[in-house]
């Protein structure tokens, strides 16, 4: 029996799956969702980790299986690929906006070569918009974030690290 759903339908269902540590952003906006394949009545979802040791991957995998089963798809497989390696450039524009609204400064683009080479690109405070900010630590609350402080509003904030 063939599945009555199209790839777009499956993708829409998958939009219920968010990053467990940043629950406002979906795995599609994050660029973690790489492919959806429908064969007969089974669905294969391909995801890629943000970091090798990202503990959120197991949760995302379970969530994907859960939402697809809930929408009536019984045969679900989730495949993880490492290549091409995930980059913060894959975070969509809507994803970047959601990060900002959530209080996390979106990552600089990798084309801003200073970010990768160790220089300090301008980082804007997600709270007050000031660019007078200072790096506190390269490593923040999760592997994918760095910790910053705003000198204008004095608030600490996370920056999604350029990768």
């Amino acid at each position: 029996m063939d599945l009555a759903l199209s790839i777009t339908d499956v993708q829409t269902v998958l939009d219920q799956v968010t990053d467990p540590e940043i629950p406002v952003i979906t795995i599609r906006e994050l660029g973690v969702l790489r492919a959806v394949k429908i064969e007969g009545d089974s669905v294969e979802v391909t995801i890629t980790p943000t970091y090798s040791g990202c503990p959120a991957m197991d949760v995302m995998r379970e969530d994907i299986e859960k939402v697809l089963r809930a929408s009536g798809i019984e045969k679900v497989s989730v495949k993880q690929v490492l290549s091409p390696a995930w980059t913060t450039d894959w975070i969509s524009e809507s994803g970047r906006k959601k990060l900002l609204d959530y209080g996390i400064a979106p990552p600089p683009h990798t084309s801003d070569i200073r970010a990768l080479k160790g220089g300090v690109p301008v980082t804007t405070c997600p709270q007050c918009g000031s660019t007078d900010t200072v790096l506190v630590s390269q490593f923040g609350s999760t592997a994918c974030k760095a910790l910053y402080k705003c000198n204008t509003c004095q608030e600490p904030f996370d920056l999604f690290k350029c990768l």
Partner: protein
Amino acid sequence: MTNQEALFRYVVRMGDNSLVMGHRLSEWCGHGPQLEEDIAQANIALDLIGQARNYLTYAGEIEGKGRSEDDLAYLRTDREYLNALITELPKGDYARTIARSFLFDAFHLPLQQALTKSTDERLKEIAEKAVKEVTYHLRHSSEWLVRFGDGTAKSHDLAQDAVDDLWRYTGELFIPDETEEMLAKSGVAPKLSDIKKEWDATIVRTLKEADLKRPTDGWMASGGKKGVHTEHLGPMLAEMQTLQRTFPGAEW
């Protein structure tokens, strides 16, 4: 040694370096000298353990005997571990941890960069991911080494002592054995002499910036690559493996 055996040994070695290094860094979790560093070391440990999972899963597939990443991590004895000795040494004080990370990261980064050109597709994929993470690791350890070396007289001396003491464990990183020579011929692994050149350049540049002296080369310890370890690995594994050894097959 067949090509398959060589590849298995090499991939286990890569996994063990990341796993043992990651475990040692994880020992700072909850004990860091300041909150930011506590978090940083836990994050770096997580990266390394994630890399180890990729390598050990692959190693299990190469071997073809049905061993999983967990079997390889939790059910091998110290003599079956193939990590470099420098990764297993106790964490010591924070200057020593930073010095060890720096000496290792300066080797790990060019190695991962070279592996992104491996003729082995899987090693290439793992490296493409790891290289981004290790870039941050080296940046972190270099910055802290400079902070210690160029800091107070006390922090300078602690950093210099650590570098001097650890130096004897850097030699084996660059001495190829049969495994590495075989794999270098087929382009699976890089030539260690090429990695050494990049390591030397990073060491000279960073030590200079940190106002630290490069130790003179003397006797070098070795054995990690063939499973002959210091007295420190056994107790570390005993702690790391205790759950799986006590309750075989336990799951979260």
